[in-house]
């Protein structure tokens, strides 16, 4: 977790000698033939050692931030007569834009500054001090571990870009770093905000102008102490330095290179022709794991490019055939960074991907067989190299789901459950979003699923209410955590509407599955419907007082078994009513009605009864008369039921 690559301190020498020219000339006056007559071309420009160091280190950071947007941190330090620390370990400081702005403020080295008081040593000392500083990630990890906080490691790397005088000078720099580490570790031991350095890698890059002999010799990594190792690279400025830092960033962060080949691109001059281009990408080397393990690395078309410094695996572009609604079996996804970010082929490829398209990549094999092994795809403006499984699946030919449990049932409520899934789709909430009950968003999602499924019949023939358009408003509302008065009103309207339907004897979509003949009679159908509706609402009655009111409305309005009507007639007290609503569902289910005549009587009595009951519970105009719907709605608005209830 906290390896050497967690912290990288860049130390760039800003002393007067860095203002020296790299002597790599760049012709920027590219005169076109038609205009070149009589014009003397401008002298070519050349970058200073400083410019070379800055742009190569920025390139290192660009690749690093592309591939590891978090956890791998850079602290950028410039050293002359004093130290300029351009950013901190904070995650928000980790981007090239901020660094470029800070570098512009520093400007190029001043060749007239007194060389005696300038040194890269100041920067190296500052880098060691900086490595002792705790990062947000280390802090978080230490806080969570509490007692075992000392197990959080502190390691880091210092990359120093300088122009050294000699091997002895290099030795002096190394000694200075070692001494500073020892000193700083002593200080850090007594501080909460500092951590002693357990391991530090010093990478010294000596930059010298082209055409000169180097005064410093290359040296491989060497342990200077148990804490410090050091290596020296002596590199000519210009493209040599660029490829050196490119190799270093790959080594330091376990990167590997993939070249996408055969990318069809329209020619700039001839829009109707297309040629094939290659684009090289860097990414975590695990994206090549399958090749490495199977020993296929060379077979997969790995070649050396650019002065033989690095290897790249070649994958072939397949004409896009994939779309976003296809789920590929993907075993890894790794962020990429193009090596040559603003070349035309690179930006063509990245823009194609950023626009939401995906590309399958084929692994060239000697046998000529075609194996799709990777996919390039972007998510939220970041491009990932996906590793696709290309071997035989152990899950092939499984028994179809229709052969297993529940496989023979044909009337699942597939569409309804689809609707349910849409209603229970997830969305990200900001980190601070915790509700009053202290629940995280994901806990709220689970509790919503619990509420929505309290009564959820899986097959069409098991339900009546969910097959009725008329019930939808109530069914959608009752599952909610909180209801507004308006919601209660909507639910009540739904109930009145059902009462209306019953009075008009509208047919119900009752399943005839399993019953002989035509199925239950009309009033029996309504009894089943009311029972089911009560079951649904009862499941939510404990949620709030307003949910309770919906149940009360149903109990008051629904057709009731005659026995109860009798009891009611015998002078039931108002207090009994609450009690009854609880039992009502069960009672009706258990008792059932016997004869049609009895039922008819029941209906008539219910209507009578309802009138009186409506007076008590809600002064609703939905009692049997008047039958005109329009004025009813108007009255409702004037007299909200909750007011009349009080």
């Amino acid at each position, binding site marked *: 977790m906290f390896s050497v690559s967690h912290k990288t301190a860049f130390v760039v020498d800003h002393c007067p000698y860095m203002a020296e020219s790299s002597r790599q000339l760049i012709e920027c006056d590219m005169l076109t033939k038609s205009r070149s007559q009589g014009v003397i071309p401008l002298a070519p420009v050349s970058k200073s050692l400083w410019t070379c160091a800055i742009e190569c280190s920025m390139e290192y950071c660009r690749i690093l931030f592309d591939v590891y947007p978090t956890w791998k941190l850079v602290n950028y330090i410039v050293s002359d007569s004093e130290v300029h620390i351009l950013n901190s370990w904070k995650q928000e400081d980790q981007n090239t834009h901020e660094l470029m702005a800070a570098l512009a403020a520093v400007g190029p080295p001043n060749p007239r500054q007194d060389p005696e008081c300038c040194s890269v040593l100041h920067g190296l000392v500052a880098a060691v001090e900086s490595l002792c500083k705790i990062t947000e990630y280390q802090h978080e990890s230490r806080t969570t571990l509490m007692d075992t906080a000392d197990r959080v490691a502190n390691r880091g790397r210092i990359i120093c870009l300088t122009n050294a005088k000699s091997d002895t000078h290099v030795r002096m720099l190394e000694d200075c770093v070692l001494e500073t580490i020892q000193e700083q570790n002593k200080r850090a031991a007594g501080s909460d905000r500092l951590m002693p350095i357990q391991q530090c890698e010093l990478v010294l890059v000596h930059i010298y102008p082209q055409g000169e002999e180097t005064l410093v010799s290359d040296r491989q990594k060497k342990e200077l102490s148990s804490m410090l190792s050091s290596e020296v690279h002596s590199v000519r400025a210009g493209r040599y330095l660029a490829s050196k830092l490119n190799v270093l960033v790959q080594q330091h962060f376990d990167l590997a290179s993939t070249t996408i080949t055969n990318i069809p691109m329209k020619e700039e001059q001839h829009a109707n022709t297309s040629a094939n281009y290659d684009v090289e990408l860097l990414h975590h080397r695990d994206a090549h794991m399958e090749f490495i393990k199977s020993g296929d690395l060379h077979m997969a078309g790995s070649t050396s490019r650019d002065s033989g410094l690095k290897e790249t695996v070649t994958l072939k572009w397949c004409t896009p055939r994939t779309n976003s609604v296809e*789920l590929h079996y993907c075993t890894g996804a790794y962020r990429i960074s193009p090596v*040559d970010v*603003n070349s035309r082929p690179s930006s063509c490829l990245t823009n194609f991907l950023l626009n939401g398209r995906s590309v399958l990549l084929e692994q060239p094999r000697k046998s000529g067989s075609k194996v799709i092994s990777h996919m390039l795809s972007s*998510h939220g403006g*970041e491009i990932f190299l996906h590793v696709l499984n290309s071997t035989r699946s152990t899950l092939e030919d499984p028994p179809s789901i229709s052969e297993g*449990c529940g496989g023979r049932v044909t009337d699942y409520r597939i569409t309804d459950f689809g609707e349910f899934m849409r*209603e229970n789709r*997830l969305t990200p909430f900001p980190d601070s979003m915790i509700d009053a009950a202290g629940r995280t968003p*994901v806990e709220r999602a689970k509790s919503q699923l619990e509420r929505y*499924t309290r009564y959820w019949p899986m097959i069409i023939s098991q339900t009546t209410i969910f097959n009725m358009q008329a019930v939808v408003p109530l069914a959608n509302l009752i599952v909610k955590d909180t209801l507004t008065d308006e919601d209660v009103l909507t639910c009540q309207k739904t109930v009145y509407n059902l009462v209306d339907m019953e009075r008009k004897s509208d047919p119900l979509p009752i399943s005839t599955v399993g019953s002989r003949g035509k199925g239950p009679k009309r009033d029996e159908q309504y009894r089943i419907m009311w029972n089911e509706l009560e079951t649904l609402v009862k499941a939510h009655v404990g949620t709030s007082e307003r949910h309770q009111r919906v149940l009360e409305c149903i109990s008051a309005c629904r057709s009731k078994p005659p026995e109860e009507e009798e009891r009611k007639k015998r002078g039931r007290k108002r207090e009994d009513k609450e009690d009854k609503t609880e039992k009502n569902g069960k009672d009706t289910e258990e008792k059932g009605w016997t004869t049609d005549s009895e039922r008819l009587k029941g209906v008539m009595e219910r209507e009578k009864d309802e009138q009186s009951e409506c007076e008590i519970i809600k002064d609703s105009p939905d009692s049997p008369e008047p039958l005109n719907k329009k004025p009813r709605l108007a009255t409702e608005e004037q007299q909200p039921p909750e007011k009349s209830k009080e």
Partner: protein
Amino acid sequence: MPTAVLLDSSLSMTRPVSVEGSEEFQRKNLAVHGLTMLFEHMATNYRLEFTSLVSFSSLWEVLVPFTRDYNTLQEALNNLEDYDKTCLEAALQGVSNIVQQEWGTSCPCQVVLVTDGALGIGRGSLRHSLQTVKQRVEDKKFPLPFPFPSKLYVMCIANAEELQATDSMDNLEQLINLNGGEGQIYTMEGPLCLKSVQSMFGKLIDQAYSPFHAVLRCGNLTSDVQVFPRPEPVTIDEEVDPMPRTVQTDLEIVGFIEIGDISSPPVLSRHLVLPIAVNKEGDEIGTGATDDTEEETSTNQMAGKSPNFCVLLHGSLKVEGMVALVQLGPDWFGMLYSQADSKKKSNLMMSLFEPGSEPLPWLGRISQLGPASDAAENPYGEDDSKSPFPIQPKHKRSYAQNVTVWIKASGLQTDVQKILRNARKLPEKTQTFYKELNRLRKAALAFGFWELLKSMAELLERECTLLSDSAHPDAAFQLSHAAQQLKLASSGDSKYAAYEHNITPMLTDFSGGGGADRI
């Protein structure tokens, strides 16, 4: 997780074992008895497992390639032949090859080695192999550790005392160590007989072939399921306290996401989720000795006819093109989705994400995903035209923000030419001209490349002199203005060289309102 059975067919396996009864057994017979038991178990409870049977002596031979046909495997067991001496290294290499050929190197595989523990003598013996393990050249490496994730189970048709008397046990333990500790050695307890071989294979079955049963839950809707292949514990490679994580037997759905939003996520493994019928006593139908197949069929039919949540879920996931996000344990999630094979048979599948709070960068932290209905505004839009995913990172990546890189000379030349091209089309291209000019200016300032600013200024001044008579008068003004601004910046004077400062077009009589409009 396929299984490769590696059966010792050397002569030593024909050694008789002394038994109390009348019939005389060879160790080979005990091995066959144990494997028969294993195959029977798999045929009943683990029938989707692919198994291969390989026999070995000084040579090795694939008797049955990977198959789910346990009758064929059983048949091969009944027709074993006896060969010469034991030479394990070649056989392990053989197994390694056949597994890689069939399944590649990422599919985990179990290797069951059945041997009497007489591991050969001299060259080709395991002892010799292990002694020379460190002196191998690149292409003659010892086959362990296997290049694919693996478990090596060694079933010894011998008891521990017997193996400890020689160095066999040490050698076998070393073998497991070479495989990164992934595996186990089983020995027989007590006398070598059918009963003890049964108990030994019973332990293997419990360890490696017990089916994984769980309850799939979506609120109050539930289904009993078998997850195949069973999910193995996962250890995250963290420095602090690496603890293996196991999938809990309560798989709780937390919500739903569109396939396009989850977008081919990387997964650790894939599993079939098969609904199972559990009868009232809580025993699974089909386990135990069920001789009465008729009864079994009828119970299966019953199970087929009663509604099951898995089937409902599968159907809707398929129709809607969605996945269900499922919690596998603390801070560990996976997804359920419908997967169709080439024969159009479809199934409910579960893929496991990497354990952790943020397995997919484009979904963000899973604990921060909540019901869309809680949001102030429907994140999917009223007509389902929007999506809250993917989550955008705070900073754009380099390839998405037009960065300036001049490492190659061509990069710099392209940028200079772009400015000159626009300079020749002034005043039409005023806006692009200044945009490109400012981009170059910023980069030159950051890189401390003041010389470039001076050269660019000279180039613009020259363009000014080359303007034709028909050129718009504004062009000359803009060019000299831009050149002057660049020169000022190249002086390093903080007033003109500020990074965030932008050169703005000069307001001229010619550009007037129209010019300002363009900017």
